[in-house]
């Protein structure tokens, strides 16, 4: 019996060493801020993306709902800017006129996200008129969708995964801001 118990305890200790590492999991998170992150992200269409985005920013542990929205919006801005850079780079090397047209359209859509959607969203949330924030973030997701549609008849969609992240992050922002209404 003693052996069994020691064995069991040993195996449990082994299991528990993995728990701190598994913070990215949709399991019980630790700390007071974690609860807000969990409940907030549950209301978004991309729970894991929401949680990992917030967790990767140290501000999230002490942020309120407004702060969480801001954090994801910042991440969205960074990702959109990076993807816009990708598009610009691709445009430089693209020769096919149809590909160039598609890339140029995506450039316009991404420009709209960075220049309008994200600033409006952050502004609206900060000033206490969140419905315009929902509108802005939703439009950002729609712009990403529009970009994807431009590549429907292209053999490849070179920024596919980045575009999806931009879309999904926008949707997360929209959901969080919706909670502020």
């Amino acid at each position, binding site marked *: 019996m003693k052996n*069994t118990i020691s064995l069991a305890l040993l*195996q*449990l200790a082994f299991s528990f060493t*993995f728990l701190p590492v598994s913070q990215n999991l949709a399991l019980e998170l630790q700390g007071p801020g974690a609860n807000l992150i969990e409940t907030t992200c549950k209301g978004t269409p991309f729970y894991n993306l929401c949680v990992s985005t917030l967790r990767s920013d140290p501000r999230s542990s002490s942020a309120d709902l407004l702060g969480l929205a801001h954090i994801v919006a910042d991440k969205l801005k960074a990702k959109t800017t990076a993807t816009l850079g990708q598009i610009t780079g691709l445009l430089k090397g693209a020769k096919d006129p149809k590909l160039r047209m598609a890339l140029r359209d995506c450039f316009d859509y991404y420009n709209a996200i960075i220049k*309008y959607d994200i600033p409006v969203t952050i502004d609206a949330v900060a000033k206490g*008129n*969140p419905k315009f924030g929902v509108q802005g973030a939703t439009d950002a997701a729609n712009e990403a969708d529009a970009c994807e549609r431009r590549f429907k008849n292209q053999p490849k969609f070179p920024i596919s995964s980045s575009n999806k992240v931009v879309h999904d992050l926008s949707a997360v922002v*929209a959901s969080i801001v919706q909670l502020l209404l």
Partner: protein
Amino acid sequence: MADRNPFLPVSSSDGFNPTGTQVNRRKLIKQLLTIFVGLLAVGLFAALLIGNNGSDNAHVNENEHGSLASSTSKKPESLRPVSRGPAAGVSEKSNRPFANVDGNLPWNNSMLSWQRTAFHFQPEKNWMNDPNGPLFYKGWYHFFYQYNPNAAVWGDIVWGHAVSKDLIHWLHLPLAMVADQWYDKNGVWTGSATILPDGKVVMLYTGSTAEAVQVQNLAYPADHSDPLLVHWVKYHGNPVLVPPPGIDEKDFRDPTTAWLTSEGKWRITIGSKINKTGIALVYDTKDFINYEQLDGVLHAVPGTGMWECVDFFPVSKTEENGLDTSVNGPGVKHVVKVSLDDDRHDYYAVGTYHEKNSTWIPDQHEIDVGIGIRYDYGIYYAAKTFYDQNKNRRVLWGWIGESDSEAADKQKGWASVQSIPRTILFDKKTGTHLVQWPVEEIDSLRLNSNEFNQVTIQAGSVVPLDIGPATQLDIIAKFEIDKEALEKTTGSNLTFSCSTSGGAAERGALGPFGLLVLADESLSEQTPVYFHIAKGSDGNLKTFFCNDQSRSSEASEVNKQIYGSIIPVLKGENLSLRILVDHSIIESFAQGGRTVITSRVYPTKAIYGAAKVFLFNNATDASVTASLKIWQMNSAFIRPYPNDKKS
């Protein structure tokens, strides 16, 4: 035995043999413990590896009221419900799959510039939203509005200003108020005007302070003898109201026009919320500077969320004129209207105002404000009325946003229009509704007309109407459905709703039928505005009024929803329709304005000379007879005031 492993599931299936020997039990426990703990470790390990690959629900959160929050691309666009009945008339075949084959950006300058309206109020460029402080003063109608002087999206909000002699021909004036004080640094937001007995004007408006707290401020004309009211002064002691205890500093905005109480005080209401219950706070004042908050609220409705742009006004039960906001008494009902932040729609309800304790009770709780009737079943928000003492009527303004993408707004350099101002009257026939009708002054824009009498439209057919240009129109139509068919058709239990239906292409026994506007010759683009009659299994008829955007444009990045609602049709009433077509906006009024739908339409082909109008009847069992008159509409030539009075 004591549970030394509290993390294991307390299971009854551990095969515990109560009659076994102690040795056997120990062996069994040892085995099971090993297995369970081992599984736990493996499980954690596996979860760690799999965990980061989300199997999330991949779609943008759809707002169930189908507001801008819905992502149009997620609907499989080539899917249409297959309906019974021969394919004819407005055929489902004419629904080509969207998105140009090459994936080109559909907006060229020609299409975008066509979108600008000819006779709806809009500033020369940039973004506009809520109507503010409308009033009539010294011979001029004044209109103020939320405006962004810097971009075609919301932000940097200030008060724009325009004047008109007739609510139709507007002249732009300089900005009335800008964000130059700490108490409105983050936004000069919505407010309302009150005209005092001596004729002077006071304006109450919400400021978003430098700390983003919502407060109420007082402003008044710098020069009361200036009929144009160009310059405004903000009261030096602003703010006059700050969020009261228990109210969040971001849930306190949009003060109403004040009304007099029997004690001679002025009373206003301001929308807010407590958790998810929308409420209207009440304040009394003698001087618009010092206020006393009343106990309780004017009204509250759980689950409706934040109440924006609350409006509160009397209507006559019997007379065909408007009432000053302070009027009360027998023969008078009061309307509470709210703009719901949660779904971006405007709702109203008719009820009774009890002045003593300043409460209002709806006539019918099932259609209480926020859960019942809407001003407009399309894109329409932040509406506000004012009493027009010039013509003894109550006039309604409503903000019409865009339903295209912000990238397109950026490209065209503007966003939003206002509805044509509407008169509001109590609908005596239903007792529950208000009727809205474009102000009569709009008739002054009518040019030549075409009349069509008793045109019979067979089941499943489309009738082109040869009227020349079809982008600026005033259409008045009456429809009569074949009575025999009405009686003969078998009813069914199926419930119908405009928004979940297949639009005008989905054929029913007694509908849809109506008009196709902004349609091109081949009907590859079309916007149906129509009635649909549904017969229940009990023989009762229900009439629906819808506006179908699903094929309004070949562009993908526009709203493609079907707007609409059930509409009460009384015995003996013919079906009647008025449609104002003004480029990218369509305002449709059914049954004299009992139900209204406004939509924004952005065709790529059905523009300029290529836009046409058709009658259609896509019912399977009934023919329809229509009589209509269609006027060409002139532009209102909205432009800056000629002798530009700058400071």
